[in-house]
């Protein structure tokens, strides 16, 4: 197996961004097919395809759609294009290279779940992709793919873009809904889940950009066709964002189940000359780190990574070589979570603050004996006790870094300098 350009087949072609170019390459044909199906047939097909959410949690998409109550209330479809999990940049590529692919996937999905109104929530910094999407939405409207009575089917859909303004927490689905409602982007307690009570307390389905784009391919090729890629439990292809110390970082689409080391060595051209792999963060900054030895066994699917105690997450792979100090790397992560905690829950607000402070102290050569145990204790107390999963997401990297690279943390505390990088402390490392 090698890189499989399935969703990304036409990404190299500039005309794919325009309505005409997209249509010439087969675009909006699946929509015509879908509008002739029964909505339930589409949901069943998505269920049978085994598609799992590409935003991070990996929840089965068809199952989520099945949670919508049949109470006659208006329904909303919300596309999560907040893409703020450190290491993730594949949704940006999708929106830049294939805005109509997302729009087509959204129209089909909205038809399936009987939503008449859909939003794309895009992070505020993505001004370029937002402009591309605005233009594509206008084109689709003008061509009758959006609006009233789409292609004579009787189905109406209004699609609009909503822009964020800098807050990782708005990627969490209930935080996103608060933000869309014009409030602070603070998450809400679940249940009720958004599928039951979401935007304006109405049933709302939140799905990631890549998830919604994949729906078109499932309808085009059928669940069985889609399942030609991937494994039994991790069906389809996935776009991986790879960054860090490899020769060719970028976004690569491979079938789920692909070997991590093949992705690093084949697609990404391996490590930099003279450097050795030390660790990989396999699913965005929230995913526990794995060591070079573990990488040898890792395949890129939900089960394998879960068995290794980590996760596929958003498919953001950060490759770390032996020139990096793990204490220093962790310090950027603890800073991130402290900065992004919305502050509603005490364990998260306080815990992220303490963890940042302790790791910051160690990396500045001011670590104290007992810091490691304190870190582990704080992280442990942050798990499973809060409104949203950010608290867990902040705790997991700390637990894994400190456990798997304990020698580096101990050395730094004892010697007041890094075990790598010529024994420096922060000020020297970053001079």
């Amino acid at each position, binding site marked *: 197996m090698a890189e499989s350009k399935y969703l990304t087949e036409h990404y190299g072609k500039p005309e794919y961004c325009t309505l005409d170019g997209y249509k010439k390459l087969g675009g909006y044909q699946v929509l015509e097919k879908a509008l002739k199906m029964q909505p339930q047939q589409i949901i069943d097909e998505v269920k049978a395809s085994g598609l799992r959410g590409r935003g991070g949690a990996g929840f089965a998409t068809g199952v989520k759609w099945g949670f919508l109550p049949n109470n006659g209330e208006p329904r909303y479809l919300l596309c999560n294009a907040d893409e703020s999990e450190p290491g993730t*940049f594949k949704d940006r590529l999708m929106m830049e290279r294939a805005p109509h692919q997302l729009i087509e996937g959204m129209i089909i999905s909205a038809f399936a779940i009987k939503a008449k109104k859909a939003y794309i929530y895009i992070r505020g910094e993505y001004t370029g992709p937002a402009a591309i999407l605005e233009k594509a939405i206008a084109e689709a409207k003008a061509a009758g793919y959006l609006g009233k009575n789409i292609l004579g089917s009787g189905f109406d859909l209004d699609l609009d873009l909503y822009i964020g303004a800098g807050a990782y927490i708005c990627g969490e689905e209930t935080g996103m809904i608060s933000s869309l409602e014009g409030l602070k982007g603070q998450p809400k307690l679940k249940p009720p889940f958004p599928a039951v009570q979401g935007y304006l307390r109405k049933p709302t389905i939140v799905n990631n950009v890549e998830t919604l784009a994949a729906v078109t391919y499932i309808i085009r090729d059928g669940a069985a066709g889609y399942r030609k890629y991937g494994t039994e439990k991790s069906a389809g292809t996935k776009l991986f964002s790879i960054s860090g110390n490899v020769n060719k970082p970028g976004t690569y689409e491979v079938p789920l189940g692909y070997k991590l080391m093949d992705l690093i060595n084949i697609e990404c051209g391996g490590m930099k000359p003279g450097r050795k792999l030390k660790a990989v963060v396999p699913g965005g*900054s929230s995913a526990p780190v794995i060591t070079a030895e573990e990488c040898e066994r890792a395949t890129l699917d939900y089960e394998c990574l879960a068995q290794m105690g980590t996760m596929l997450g958003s498919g953001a792979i950060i490759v770390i070589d032996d020139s990096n100090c793990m204490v220093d790397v962790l310090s*950027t992560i603890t800073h991130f979570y402290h900065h992004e905690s919305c502050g509603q829950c005490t364990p998260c607000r306080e815990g992220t603050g303490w963890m940042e402070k302790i790791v910051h102290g160690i990396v500045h050569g001011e670590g104290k004996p007992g810091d490691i145990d304190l870190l582990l204790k704080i992280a442990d107390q942050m798990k499973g006790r809060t409104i949203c999963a950010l608290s867990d997401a902040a705790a997991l990297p700390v637990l894994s870094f400190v456990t798997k690279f304990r020698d580096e943390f101990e050395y730094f505390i004892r010697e007041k300098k890094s075990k790598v990088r010529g024994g420096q402390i922060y000020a020297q490392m970053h001079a």
Partner: protein
Amino acid sequence: MFKLSEDGLKYVKSELTRYETKQSAIIRCLYRAQDENGGWVSPEVIQHLSEVMEIPAAQIEEVATFYTMFNKQKVGRYHVQVCCTLTCGMLGGRELTDAMMKEAGCKKTGETSADGLFTFSKVECLGSCDTAPMLQINRDPYIESLSTEKAVQLVRDLRAKAKGH
């Protein structure tokens, strides 16, 4: 006293009916007002928006404070936001910020250079880690695949450009 331009007022009026509730227009209107106010959201901006949008000032203020892309303090003409998270942090984002700040004459982040041109912020992952280290100035297209030398040169170029105008 801050007041939106004619066009700005028209924009705000049309945004108010764009979404299901008018509150949902707050973010877009804050961006517009921030741009018209030289890059920051002053208390006057909030007051004015509150009157024009007929939304309590406290509610607008809450939104303005929650999101990092609204500057609650004056910034220079170029608000340089350097990513210093995970990948960018590993690949030199932090060193690069310090070097740029030195060139621009800023002692710390958040402080504007004496010539009024530069303010620096260290920001979190901007979703462009394959081109790390990288930065964004104001809300303009990303500047990617930087080195410390290129970044320092960028400060010089921007300064030359500003002087030429």
